[in-house]
């Protein structure tokens, strides 16, 4: 029975509408007023929050298109997260895009498209919606990565991202086709039932299908060994885009992984469990070690985000091992995602703000930041140390639930992964601290850099402020974050 509940898709509609308005308005705006579109975009995302909050408060659940499109607490929570992340990225973008004076209208258009894609993703409950939403999320980003058209690095970032992207999409689609071939279903529920009724859970071809699908997600979340594009692309892309890539795009990958694994393939732990265990361990280890060698802040953040992806995969591995791991793992992943999104965006915001002033992302050039710009220095320290997982900054709770989700299984596999994660958490601290060290402990350069770039810094500061408040408050009262986790856990029956 197909009935469209307009409230349920109101958030997507608002974003889509904003997107169109941006496109239209952009045509008529004179060059120097282009930043109006930014305001519009910000307004749109803010507006889109309203129905999300309304529905979340009401606690309703809507199912449309034969169950292909579901708006439940899980979807709402993640829509909210995507919107907030999008909102922050927009704020971060304003000054950067303004200062570089490149196609502002299109920039926001594409960003909003990607945002729309990820919002749809949260509600998609069959492979078609999932695929389309994923592509909508990623496609605009291929272009945004190359947005600094004259910059060879940006071009390169874009092409690399694109090629790896389409390759993984191809592999994922091949996996989906196999899945369809085995089950004759595209909806997650149908696939789950087909697997159960036909006893396919141990079928090797199903395993191949699962692994192929995981490639697609692995690419999106940039987990080792599907992460190779990330450092280059992050480094080459305009930093606000990188921020978006490292947060929203990664989140989208995780959301896709969550719905597919928990709704379609909960019984197939035999395949995705070990695979994700390996990916988690490899991501943490390889990325953390690689990050130790980085001298470029954004590239360091790239490896950091790969490592964080590794941490976020840990609960999945736990979910496969423990009896009641699924719900625990889901909650943990969502909490980690929420906290990661905010703190990573905060980190990017600070880095971009500092980058404006310093004009370089080489860590050594950031020396003495704390002495001449203490506020920025403090923010830098807060976000980076939060990423490192130090109490009382929000990051600790993310790590905490992650450990919790893996230790729920008492078997050796779980304990070993926990130990690997623990050691990695320590290693990770080293490179985060290196940035802090440079900013605070090293002597400032003789000529103190001044912020000479044009463009408003207000939105950027607002983004930093919002992130800061969240990081501090959630760090002290993690119960706020568990609310998201609990709400999302409703996904698992």
């Amino acid at each position, binding site marked *: 029975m197909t009935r469209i509940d307009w409230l349920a898709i109101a958030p997507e509609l608002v974003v889509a509408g904003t997107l169109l308005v941006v496109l239209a308005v952009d045509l008529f705006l004179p060059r120097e007023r282009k930043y109006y579109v930014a305001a519009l975009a910000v307004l749109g995302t803010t507006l889109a929050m309203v129905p999300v909050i309304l529905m979340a408060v009401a606690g309703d659940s809507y199912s449309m298109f034969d169950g292909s499109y579901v708006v439940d607490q899980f979807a709402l929570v993640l829509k909210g997260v995507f919107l907030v992340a999008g909102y922050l990225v927009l704020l971060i973008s304003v000054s950067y895009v303004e200062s570089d004076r490149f196609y502002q209208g299109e920039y926001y258009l594409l960003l909003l498209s990607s945002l729309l894609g990820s919002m749809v993703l949260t509600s998609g409950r069959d492979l078609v919606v999932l695929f389309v939403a994923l592509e909508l999320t990623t496609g605009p980003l291929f272009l945004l990565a190359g947005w600094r058209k004259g910059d060879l690095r940006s*071009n390169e970032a874009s092409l690399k991202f694109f090629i790896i992207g389409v390759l993984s999409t191809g592999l994922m689609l091949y996996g989906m*086709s196999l899945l369809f071939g085995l089950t004759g279903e*595209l909806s997650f529920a149908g696939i789950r039932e087909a697997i159960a009724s036909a006893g396919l859970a141990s079928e090797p071809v199903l395993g191949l299908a699962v692994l192929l699908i995981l490639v697609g997600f692995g690419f999106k979340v940039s987990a080792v060994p599907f992460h190779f594009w990330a450092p280059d692309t992050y480094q080459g892309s305009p930093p606000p885009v990188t921020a978006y890539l490292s947060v929203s795009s990664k989140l989208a990958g995780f959301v896709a992984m969550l719905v597919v694994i928990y709704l379609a393939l909960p019984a197939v732990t035999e395949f995705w469990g070990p695979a994700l265990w390996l990916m988690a361990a490899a991501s943490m280890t390889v990325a953390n070690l690689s990050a130790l060698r980085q001298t470029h802040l954004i590239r360091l953040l790239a490896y950091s985000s790969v490592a964080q992806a590794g941490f976020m995969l840990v609960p999945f591995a736990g979910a496969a091992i423990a009896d009641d791991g699924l719900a625990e793992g889901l909650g943990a992943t969502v909490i980690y995602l929420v906290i990661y999104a905010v703190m990573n965006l905060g980190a990017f915001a600070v880095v971009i703000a500092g980058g404006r002033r310093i004009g370089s992302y080489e860590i050594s050039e950031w020396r003495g930041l704390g002495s001449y710009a203490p506020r920025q220095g403090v923010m830098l320290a807060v976000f980076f140390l939060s990423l490192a997982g130090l109490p009382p900054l929000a990051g600790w709770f993310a790590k905490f639930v992650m450990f919790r989700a893996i230790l729920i299984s008492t078997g050796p596999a779980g304990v070993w992964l926990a130990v690997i994660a623990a050691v990695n958490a320590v290693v990770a601290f080293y490179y985060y601290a290196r940035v802090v060290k440079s900013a605070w402990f090293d002597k400032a350069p003789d000529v103190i850099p001044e912020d000479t770039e044009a463009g408003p810094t207000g939105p950027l500061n607002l983004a930093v402020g919002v992130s800061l408040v969240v990081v501090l408050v959630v760090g002290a009262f993690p119960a706020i974050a568990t609310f998201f986790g609990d709400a999302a856990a409703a996904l698992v029956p």
Partner: protein
Amino acid sequence: MGVEVILNQFLILAAVLFVMGVYGLLVRRNAVMVLLAVELMLAAVNINLVAMEAFWQTTEALGQILAVFIITVAAAEVGIGLAIILLIFRNRRSANVDELDLMRW
């Protein structure tokens, strides 16, 4: 005989096409050729889907639906890809993907 055999043949065809696509993507220097390799992969997927739909005969013709979406999205992707390649070609006078190593440590 019948559906089983034919299905298997289609699947094998798709698999071969897919592997060729992957291979092409890995080894061709020219970016346009890489794009074509991707098309090959997607074509393989589509063949798979259509063949399997023929096997399952689902009421909503699910396989075809997905295949149509894939074709559509693939077109968009190629558009994006070509745009990027064009951009690079303008800047570098070359569209060879193996020359892109500015960010190699």
